[in-house]
C-alpha cells in the first residue's frame, strides 16, 4: 500500500516539476488581429436562431439589420440596405448588391421574404408586417398592417432579426410550411384584433400546423448538419467550446476589405469577478461589467490601458407600488416617499456611475428630459428635492401622525410594508438596502425581502408584493418617450402594479387618462408638434400622480482597452449610444468599418 502511495506521490511531484519548467505565459492564445470580448452562448452550440439561446452574444456579428440607428444623433447608418423609401404604409428597402452569405451565395430579396415568413411562423411576431414582397432580387417591399404604429418602420429597419436570420438556401425545405403558418397566424391575429371571433377549428388547425413546423425547425442545427453556419454578417461562428467561442471573418462581407480584424473571440461571462479579473490581466479588449468605484480606480492603476465610457442604458430603476395595497393608493404617502428618498445616496451605493434621477419624475429618462419636456411644463410641476420636512408636511396635512419615530395613517394604523427586490440583481439589492434604511430612519417600518432566482415574474405578476424595485420607464426597442409611457401605463408596469391608468387625472390642460394619451401618442408619433404636446401631459401626470418613484437611470459602463487596439471613438462620439440593447453592434460597426483595429 505504502509503495503505491509513494509511486503516485512521486508521479505527482514530477508532473508538477514538468509544469513549472514550462513557461507560464499567456502568449499561446495571443493573436494580434483578434477582438476579445466576454459573452454568453448556448452550448452545445446549434447555430439556429430559433433554437434555445439562439446564437448568444454573436447575434450582431452574424446577423445584419437593414440599418443601425444612432440614438444620440438620430442618424441611420445603412447596413444591409443601401437606401429605403417610406410611402404611407409601404416601406421599400433597396438591398446592398454586394452582400453575400459566408458560403459565397448572394444575399437576395428572397432571403428577406423567407426570414419574415419564418419569424412570423416561429415567434408569432411581427404581425405588424402584413405582406412582404420581393420586387426584384435587390428590392423588398413591406406593407404594414392598418393598425400597426408607424414607429414599426423603425423596428423593421433596425431589428437584427428582420433581414438575414434565415438563409433561404439552408431553410428552403420548410419555407412552404412556414409561409402557411405565418399567413394563418396573421389571419387569426387580425380577426381577433378587429373583434371578429375565430372558429375553434381554425385555431386547432393553426396549433397543429405550427407545432409540426416548430418541432422540425427547433431541432435543426446547421452547425451540426452543415458543419457550418452560413451568415450574412461580418463573422461566422467557427469554433465553439463551453468556455470560449471563436467567430471568423466572413470574407464575402461587403466591408471585408476595410475590416482588418480576423477573429472575434468570446470568453464565457461566468461571473462578474471573472470578467474583472480578465479585464485587469488584459485578457479582454472590452467588457461592460458593473464595478465598484475603487475597483475601477485600481484596475486603471494595474492596467493603465483601460478606459471607460458610460452611456445611458435607456432605462431607469424605480420603486414601484402595488396599488391593490390600501397604503399606496394614497398619493400623499407616495409623494412623501418621493421626498424622503435621497437619490444621490442610493445611486452612490448601488451603481456609482448611474445618472441619479432628476428632480422631476416625468417618466422621460433623466438624461433625455431636456429634449422632450419643456421648461414651461416643468414650472407647473412638483419638484422633488430630498427633504424630510416637506414629506412631514404632506403627511401631517393628510392626517398622518408620528409617535415614537413611527408614522401612523389617518386611520391610526402604523405605516409598515415590505420592499421586495430580485436577489440575483446585485445593484437592485444594494439600492433596496439603502431605500429601506432611509425610509426606516424617516419613521416608516420597512422590511426587505429578496425574490429568489427565477421567481421575479411569478412574484410580480401575481402581485405578491407590497412595493418593489423594478425597471420603471424603459425605452427598449424604440428609443422614444412613447416606449417608456407604454410600459408605465399599458404594459408591464401597469399590469403588475395595477395603477389605474384608464382613470382620468387632472392636469392644467384638462382631465386625461394616461392610457388614452399613450394611444394618441402612438398614432401621432411622426407629428412632432402633436407628439410633444401629448408628452407634456403624460409628463405632468407621471410627476404628479407618481405611478413609480424613479431612483436612478441605468448606465452601461463600457471598459475598453487600448493595449492591443487603436481607433476607439472619442468620448463625445455619438456611436457609443448604439450600445444599449446590443453592445456588440457598436463593436461590429467599429471593426467592420476598419475604425477599430489592431495596433
Amino acid at each position, binding site marked *: 500500500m505504502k509503495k503505491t502511495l509513494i509511486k503516485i506521490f512521486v508521479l505527482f511531484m514530477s508532473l508538477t516539476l514538468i509544469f513549472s519548467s514550462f513557461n507560464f505565459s499567456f502568449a499561446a492564445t495571443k493573436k494580434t488581429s483578434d477582438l476579445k470580448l466576454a459573452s454568453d452562448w448556448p452550448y452545445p452550440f446549434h447555430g439556429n436562431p430559433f433554437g434555445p439561446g439562439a446564437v448568444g452574444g454573436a447575434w450582431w456579428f452574424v446577423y445584419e439589420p437593414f440599418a443601425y440607428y444612432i440614438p444620440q444623433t438620430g442618424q441611420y447608418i445603412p447596413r444591409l440596405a443601401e437606401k429605403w423609401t417610406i410611402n404611407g404604409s409601404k416601406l421599400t428597402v433597396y438591398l446592398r448588391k454586394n452582400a453575400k452569405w459566408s458560403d459565397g451565395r448572394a444575399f437576395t430579396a428572397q432571403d428577406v421574404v423567407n426570414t419574415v415568413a419564418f419569424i412570423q411562423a416561429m415567434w408569432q411576431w411581427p404581425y405588424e408586417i402584413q405582406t412582404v414582397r420581393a420586387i426584384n432580387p435587390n428590392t423588398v417591399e413591406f406593407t404594414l398592417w392598418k393598425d400597426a404604429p408607424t414607429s414599426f418602420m423603425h423596428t423593421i429597419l433596425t431589428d437584427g432579426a428582420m433581414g438575414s436570420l434565415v438563409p433561404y438556401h439552408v431553410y428552403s425545405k420548410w419555407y412552404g410550411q412556414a409561409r402557411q403558418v405565418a399567413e394563418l397566424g396573421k389571419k387569426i391575429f387580425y380577426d381577433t384584433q378587429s373583434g371578429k371571433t375565430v372558429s375553434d377549428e381554425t385555431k386547432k388547425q393553426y396549433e397543429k400546423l405550427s407545432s409540426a413546423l416548430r418541432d422540425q425547425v427547433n431541432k435543426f442545427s446547421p452547425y451540426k448538419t452543415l458543419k457550418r453556419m452560413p451568415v450574412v454578417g461580418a463573422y461566422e461562428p467557427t469554433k465553439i467550446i463551453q468556455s470560449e467561442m471563436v467567430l471568423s471573418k466572413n470574407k464575402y462581407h461587403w466591408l471585408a476589405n476595410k475590416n482588418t480584424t480576423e477573429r472575434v473571440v468570446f470568453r464565457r461571462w461566468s461571473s462578474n469577478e471573472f470578467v474583472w479579473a480578465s479585464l485587469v490581466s488584459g485578457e479582454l479588449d472590452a467588457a461592460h461589467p458593473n464595478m465598484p468605484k475603487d475597483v475601477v480606480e485600481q*484596475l486603471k492603476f494595474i492596467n493603465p490601458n483601460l478606459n471607460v465610457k458610460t452611456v445611458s442604458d435607456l432605462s431607469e430603476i424605480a420603486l414601484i407600488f402595488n396599488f391593490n395595497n390600501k397604503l399606496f393608493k394614497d398619493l400623499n404617502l407616495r409623494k412623501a416617499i418621493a421626498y424622503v428618498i435621497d437619490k444621490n445616496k442610493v445611486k452612490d*451605493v448601488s451603481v456609482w456611475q448611474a445618472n441619479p434621477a432628476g428632480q422631476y419624475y416625468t417618466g422621460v429618462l433623466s438624461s433625455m428630459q431636456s429634449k422632450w419636456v419643456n421648461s414651461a411644463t416643468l414650472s407647473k410641476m412638483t419638484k422633488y428635492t430630498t427633504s424630510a420636512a416637506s414629506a412631514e408636511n404632506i403627511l401631517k396635512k393628510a392626517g398622518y401622525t408620528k409617535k415614537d419615530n413611527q408614522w401612523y395613517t389617518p386611520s391610526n394604523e402604523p405605516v409598515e410594508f415590505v420592499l421586495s427586490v430580485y436577489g440575483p440583481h446585485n445593484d437592485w439589492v444594494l439600492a433596496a438596502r439603502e431605500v429601506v434604511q432611509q425610509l426606516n430612519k424617516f419613521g416608516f417600518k420597512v422590511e426587505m425581502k429578496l425574490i429568489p432566482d*427565477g421567481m421575479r415574474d411569478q412574484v410580480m405578476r401575481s402581485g*405578491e408584493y407590497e412595493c418593489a424595485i423594478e425597471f420603471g420607464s424603459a425605452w427598449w426597442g424604440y428609443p422614444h418617450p412613447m416606449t417608456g409611457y407604454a410600459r408605465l401605463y399599458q404594459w408591464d408596469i401597469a399590469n403588475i402594479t395595477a395603477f389605474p391608468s384608464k382613470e382620468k387625472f387632472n392636469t392644467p390642460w384638462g382631465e386625461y387618462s394616461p392610457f388614452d394619451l399613450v394611444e394618441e401618442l402612438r398614432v401621432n408619433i411622426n407629428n412632432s408638434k402633436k407628439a410633444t404636446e401629448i408628452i407634456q401631459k403624460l409628463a405632468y401626470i407621471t410627476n404628479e400622480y407618481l405611478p413609480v418613484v424613479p431612483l436612478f437611470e441605468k448606465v452601461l459602463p463600457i471598459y475598453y482597452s487600448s493595449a492591443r487596439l487603436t481607433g476607439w471613438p472619442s468620448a463625445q462620439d455619438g456611436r457609443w449610444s448604439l450600445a444599449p440593447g446590443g453592445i456588440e453592434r457598436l463593436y461590429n460597426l467599429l471593426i467592420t468599418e476598419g475604425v477599430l483595429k489592431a495596433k
Partner: protein
Amino acid sequence: MSELRINLTKGISLFKYNKKAFIGFIIILFYVLMAIFGRYIVPLSLESNFSERYLAPSLKHPFGTDYFGIDIFAQIVNGARTVIGLSMTSSFFAVLIGTILGILRGYLTGKIGQLVDAIISIFLVIPSFPALLIMAAIFADSNLNMVQISLIVALWLWAPLAKQVSAQVMSIKSKEFIEASKMLNMPLYYIVFKDIFPLVAPYILVNFAMQLKGAMEFTIGLMFLGLAKFDSTHWGIMLNYALYQAGALYTPRAFHYPFFIILNIILLIYGGIIFAQGLEETFNPKLRGHE
C-alpha cells in the same frame, strides 16, 4: 470502564487539565455573549456615507468602515445574533437528528435497522446544497420562522453525522460492558443513554463544530434566495458584499474590510473545533494516554 462514564457536567472541571477545551469554550462564550448583549452595548447605525467608505481601523471604528461607510465592528457585533442564532439552531437540529438516527441505526438490527439505514443513505446520496436551493424556492413565500428555517437547513446536514455515529455505535456495541448490560437485562434506554451515548458524545461535539460551518454557508445561501429574512449584518452576507459587490480584494485600501469579517468567522468556528477536540481528548482516555 466506569472511568469512561464521566457525565458532561463533571467534564467542565476538566478544563484546568485541558487548555484547548478551555480556550475553545472562552471563544464560544465570547460570541454567545456578543449575540445576546452586543446590540445593547454597541449601537448599530446602518446609515451609509459613501465619502467615508474604507476608513482604516481607528479608535472610532475599531475594524474600519465598509464600502457603504458603515462601521464594520458594530455590524459584526450586531450580526452575531443571526449568525449564532440561525447557524447554531440549524446545527443543533442536525446533530439531534443525526445522533438519534445514527444510534438507532448502529444499535438496532433487523428490518427497522435496515429501514433507518436506507433513510440515512437516501439523504447521503442527494447533493445537499442544490437540494436546499430547491427547498428554498418551494418555501420562499411561506414566511417561515427561525425554527422552521433551521429545520430545513438541518434536513440536509444531518446525514453524514448519522452515518459516522452509526459506525461508532456498531464498534462500541460489541464491547464487553454492553454485553454485560444486555445480559443483566437492562432496558434499551439505559443501554443507549448510559452505555452508548457517553461514548459517542465527544464525537458528536466535534461534529457540532463542523456542522456550524456548513449551517453558516447554507444560511447565507438561504438569505440570498429570500427564504431566511435578509439581514445585512449577517457575517456571511457582509463577506459576500465585500468580495462580490465591493470587490474589496481589488482595492488595497479595503484590505481590512474582508479581513475582519473572515477573522471573526474563522475565530468562531476555530473556537468550536478546538473546544470539541479538547473535550474529545478529555473524555477519551486513549487520547490522554498519548499526551
